[in-house]
C-alpha cells in the first residue's frame, strides 16, 4: 500500500518563495507544500522592510515529496547555485513512506 519517496525541506527567506516554487515546478515535481515560518540561522538577514515588531514570519518552509532522489538532488542543486551565496536558506532531505496511489 505504500511507496518510499524523498521529502526535501527548504527553509529560507519569504522573498524567495515564488522563485523557489517556480524552480521546483520547472524541475518536474508533482507538488509542494508551503508554511509560513520564522527563525534564525547563521546568516539571518532580513529581506523585507515590513515591521518586525509585528512578529511577521519572514521565512518560508517549503516541502517537496519526490519519487526519486535524483529529482530532489536536482532541486537542491538549483537552489544552491542560485540562492546560497546571497540569501538565508537551508535545505535537508529524508525518506518517508507515502500512500502508493498518489503519484510523486
Amino acid at each position, binding site marked *: 500500500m505504500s511507496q518510499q519517496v524523498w521529502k526535501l525541506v527548504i527553509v529560507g527567506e519569504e*522573498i524567495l518563495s515564488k522563485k523557489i516554487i517556480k524552480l521546483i515546478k520547472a524541475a518536474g515535481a508533482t507538488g509542494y507544500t508551503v508554511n509560513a515560518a520564522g527563525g534564525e540561522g547563521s546568516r539571518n*538577514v532580513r*529581506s*523585507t*522592510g*515590513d*515591521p518586525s515588531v509585528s*512578529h511577521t514570519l519572514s521565512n518560508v518552509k517549503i516541502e517537496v515529496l519526490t519519487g526519486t532522489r535524483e529529482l530532489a538532488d536536482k532541486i537542491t542543486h538549483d537552489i544552491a547555485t542560485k540562492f546560497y551565496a546571497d*540569501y538565508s536558506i537551508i535545505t535537508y532531505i529524508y525518506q518517508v513512506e507515502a500512500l502508493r496511489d498518489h503519484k510523486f
Partner: protein
Amino acid sequence: MSDFIELFIKQLQSPTLGFLIGGIVVASFGSQLAIPDSIYRFITFFLLMKIGLSAGIAIRNSNPTEIFLPALGAMLVGIAIVFIGQYTLGRLPGIKTTDALATGGLFGAVSGSTLAALLPQLDSANIPYEAWSAALYPFMDIPALVTAIVVASVYLTKKNGEASEKVEIWPIIKESLQSSAVTAMLLGVALGILTKPESVYESFFNPLFRGFLAILMIIMGMEAAQRMNELRKVAQWFAIYAFIAPIVHGFLAFGVGLIIHKITGFSIGGAVVLAVIAASSSDISGPPTLRAGIPSANPSAYIGASTAIGTPVAIAICIPLFIGIAEMMAR
C-alpha cells in the same frame, strides 16, 4: 532666526511626532505591544489610497501639463541621490559599493508614511500646495530604485570581468509599479480621476486619515527601535549617512522646487512636498525590490539605516524644518 526656531519647535509638538516617539519608547522598554501585521498592511494601503484619491480628484480639476516640470525635477533628484550615495557613503573605508548603492537607492525612493505624515501638517500650517503634488511619489521612487539596481549590475559585471550583459530596465520598473505601495497610490489616483469617489472619500478616507496615520507612526517608531540592533552590526558610517542624508536630500529637492517655483507657478508648499519625499526613504516597496535587484548587498545595512534612523529623521526633523522654512518665506 528666532522666529524660525519658534516655528520649528511648534512643529516638534505635533501629535504625529508624539506618536512616533511613543512607539520608539514603547519598543525600547521591551513592551509586548504589537500591532498585527495585517493591520499594518491595511493602514498603509488605506493611507496611500487616501493620498492617491485626493491627488486624483485634484488632477481631475487641474491642468495636467503643470505636473511636467515638478515630475521631471522629482526624477532627477531621485537619480542624483543614488549617485550621491555612491560617491559619498561608497567612498568611505570598509563600505562595499553595492551596499552604498542599495542604501542610496532606498534613500532616493519614497516613504508613503512620511508623505502621509507631511500632508496634514502642511494643512495645519495653512501652507497651500498643489493637491496633485503627492502624485510626484512614483516619479522619484521608481527612477531611484532603477538607477541603484542598474548601476550596481554594471559595477558587478565590470568587477567580475564578465562579458557585459545588458541590464533590463523594464522588469525593474514593472516590479516597482507592481509593488503594493505604488499600486495603492496609483489606484487611488486613477479612481480619483475617472470615477466620482467624493462620497467615499468624505465619509471614510478623509475622516479616518489622521487616526490611522497616528497608529502607523507608533508602528514606525517601534520598528525604528527594533532595527537599531541590526544597524549596530554594520559599519557606523551607515548610521551617520542615515542621519545626514535626509536633510541634504531635502535641501537639494527644495532647491529644485524653488527653481521650478520661479519658472512656473509651482507653489512653495509643493516645493516642501518635493523636499520631504526626497528626504524620506522607502519603507514598503523599496526593500524587496532592492533585495531582489542587488542580492549581494547587505539588507541589514540599508534597511537598518533607513528604518532605524532615516525615517525618524525625515519625520521628526525634515518635516518641521521645511515647513518652518516655508512659513518663514511666506511672511
